[in-house]
């Protein structure tokens, strides 16, 4: 059995396929140091549980989980598949522990999600190390720096794949194929098909290896798609983040504590609209819609310690004018915008833990909560850019993870798992730790079903 990809879904599939008696070859496009796709950057997994299981507290029943999913997707999901995914996630903690995963006991200083989300000790790379170690002990072969270039598919049946390693190509025949090689967010030309030149200014938060080549091959062979092609999950990032692979440390949650200006030093959206994670999820797309995909957040000394530190130091100045100049904004215009904002702030009781009554009056766009005058030097500024986490479009699958070809025909030996098929369930929005749920649940199903097909 051939598995394209080397992240969470791929390794869960490999392990289950091996349990099912298949001989498994995992092809990871990245070198060993960067193995694991976007799973490297994850830190937790959300799963359903009806009682304490030693990893999570309380209960997190199917209906509540599904409600949470409905809320973020606005109904853009496949209920049957989504509920199936949720139910199948039930034993995740136990299964993962049995396959070498270690958990973080309790988490301080960040979200308390210990009822719904279990945190891996050391994060996603540690998780992937543990899976690779388990896989190696089980006799699963993994080849790094090895990319699947072409798929030889006849009428929805997989025959072989052409793979490239160190510039050498070879053909690998297998009885079944599992695609678990992620979306196409690192393929800028593909993003440009929907976003035009703006895509050049996007930052890709995760692996540079998610080029979507396998996805494209499957579409070309007639696989049905699921999820919006133009859709991606994006957040506001520090604009100085590296183009790829910056992961978690470049995200910034300063927006509600200040004002956000675009390239023309104008405000463009209500910074105080809502809490994390909703604001977290919309600001990437908002900035993507601004000129040159840039924005600048300005806070003052009152607020600088109210959000998690960024990896890059903020710009700092004694006046808004100087700060704007340092960030290449029009100083006079920036000062005018901040002054107008300050003049519109009505008195209130500031409380970042509630939707407080600090708001602007007669300002368009308004700042509906947490609005405080920006008047205490030093002033701090952060450049912002949209950072893409993942793309939504993938291949359509059934409950067995079989990829659907022309007229909804499930392929007998082509399966997909993880980000490559998450669009079936997650049409838009995001629920913390749900990508790992999808990868773990459907990775295991794909591995089990594919083993049934070949053994």
């Amino acid at each position, binding site marked *: 059995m051939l598995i394209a990809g080397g992240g969470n879904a791929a390794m869960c599939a490999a392990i289950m396929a091996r349990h099912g008696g298949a001989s498994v070859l995992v092809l990871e496009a990245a070198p060993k140091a960067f193995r694991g796709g976007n799973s*490297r950057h994850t830190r937790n997994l959300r799963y359903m549980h009806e009682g304490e299981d030693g990893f999570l507290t309380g209960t997190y029943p199917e209906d509540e989980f599904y409600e949470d999913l409905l809320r973020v997707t606005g109904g853009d999901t496949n209920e049957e598949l989504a509920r199936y995914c949720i139910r199948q996630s039930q034993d995740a903690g136990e299964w993962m522990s049995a396959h070498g995963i*270690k958990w973080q006991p309790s*988490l301080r200083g960040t979200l308390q999600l210990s009822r719904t989300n279990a*945190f891996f000790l050391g994060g996603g*790379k540690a998780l992937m190390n543990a899976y690779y170690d388990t896989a190696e002990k089980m006799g699963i072969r993994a080849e790094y720096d090895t990319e699947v270039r072409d798929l030889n598919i006849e009428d929805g049946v997989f025959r072989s794949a052409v793979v490239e390693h160190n510039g050498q190509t070879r053909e690998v025949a297998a009885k079944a194929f599992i695609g678990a090689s992620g979306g196409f967010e690192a393929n800028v030309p593909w993003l440009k098909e929907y976003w035009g030149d703006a895509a050049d200014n996007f930052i890709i938060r995760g692996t540079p290896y998610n080029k979507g080549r396998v996805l494209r091959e499957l579409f070309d062979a007639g696989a049905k798609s699921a999820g919006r092609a133009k859709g991606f999950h994006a957040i506001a990032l520090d604009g100085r983040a590296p183009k790829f692979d910056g992961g978690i440390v470049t995200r910034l949650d300063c927006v509600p504590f200040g004002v956000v200006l675009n390239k023309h030093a104008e405000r463009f959206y209500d910074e105080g609209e809502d809490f994390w994670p909703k604001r977290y999820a919309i600001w990437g797309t908002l900035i993507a819609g601004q000129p040159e995909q840039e924005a600048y957040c300005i806070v003052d000394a009152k607020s600088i310690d109210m959000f998690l*530190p960024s990896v890059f130091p903020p710009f700092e100045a004694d006046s808004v004018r100087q700060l704007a100049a340092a960030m290449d904004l029009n100083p006079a215009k920036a000062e005018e915008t901040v002054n107008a904002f300050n003049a519109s702030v009505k008195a209130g009781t500031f409380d970042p833990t509630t939707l407080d009554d600090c708001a602007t009056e007669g300002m368009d766009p308004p700042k509906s909560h947490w609005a405080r005058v920006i008047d205490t030097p030093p002033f701090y500024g952060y450049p912002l850019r949209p950072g893409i986490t993942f793309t939504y479009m993938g291949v359509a699958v059934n409950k067995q993870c079989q990829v659907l070809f022309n007229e909804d025909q499930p392929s007998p030996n082509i399966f997909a798992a993880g980000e490559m098929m998450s669009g079936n369930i997650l049409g838009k929005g995001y629920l913390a730790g749900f990508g790992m749920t999808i990868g773990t649940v459907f990775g295991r199903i794909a591995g089990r079903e594919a083993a049934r097909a070949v053994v």
Partner: protein
Amino acid sequence: MPSSEHLKEADRVMTICNACRYCAGFCAVFPAMERRRTFDTKDLVYMSNLCFECRACYYACQYAPPHEFGVNVPQALSRLRADTYEDYAWPRVLKGFYKNNAFLVGLVTTVCIVLAFVLTLVFQGSTTLFSAHQGSGAFYAVVPYGAMVFPASVMFFYAIFALLAGFVSFWRRTRGSIADLIDVSAFARAVKEAFGLQYMKGGGDGCNYPDEKFSKSRMWHHHLVFYGFALDFAATTVAAFYHHFMHWDAPYPYLSVPVVFGTVGGVMMCIGTVGLLYLKSKSDLDPAEEKMLSLDKTFLWMLFLTSFTGLLLLVFRETAAMGTLLVIHLGVVAGLFLTIPYSKFAHAVYRYAALIQNAIEVREDESKIVLG
């Protein structure tokens, strides 16, 4: 002051870590980091001494080399920690001892052995040195009691004093008032963590040492060295008690307390030091700091030689080789104690101070409401 380059790098790395925080569950360094938003010299020096170089964070790091952020926490903190040993060495004039540690420790030890040999030959004569002595007081027939105990006591108390001086100036610099040190609960927590090697357990499966796989072998070997050393120390103390209060002269019978403690401790130290040296020889050099590794190896060799020559002396104490072995053993012990304040032994002193500060911070933390 630690090297500004080392400080800068540790600051850079910790700033990245503080925006990530995935490693929070591994050890005490990361919670200590989360208590701070920026890191000044005293913070970084303190945190570097909280690090037990278990390397769990290195292999778990999404930003480890070859990532362009090149985050290498164990290496950055080891560099700073090695600077600590120099910065707090007492007296200051001897801090250079850390610069060429292996050579200087070797030199001092060799001089001690040669000196012991020459003095014994001159004052006791070759017949005494090279013939067998048996029964009570046999050792003192070769090296008189006063010649053995007086220099040893001076060196021992000198070492204790020098290490304490280092401890106090480290504490002053990283935490502040000496009054803060009178903190029973923090002391107790630090003792428990130090004696149990809490931070060599990682998430429960040990360090990523010598390679990326989890293993407790480093912890167990360290335990052998530490408790072996403690047993040998206990043996010496009991022997001193026998000598002064019971008026029994060494050598003691094979089944006496000092000999049993000394033998078991010596064997433990031999196994522990050889094991650690072996693990180090196989260890992944990417997260390592060369200078620290050299300090480690030098000190491990000294401990090995001390215990091994002690065991040899025990085995051959009834033969004509006893005199030579005794002189070599005493020379090695003298070398060990003279150089202890300028060796890797210092890690115990500063780590312990860091653990006390950590215990105080943890307690302060627990009494605060942690906002989500």
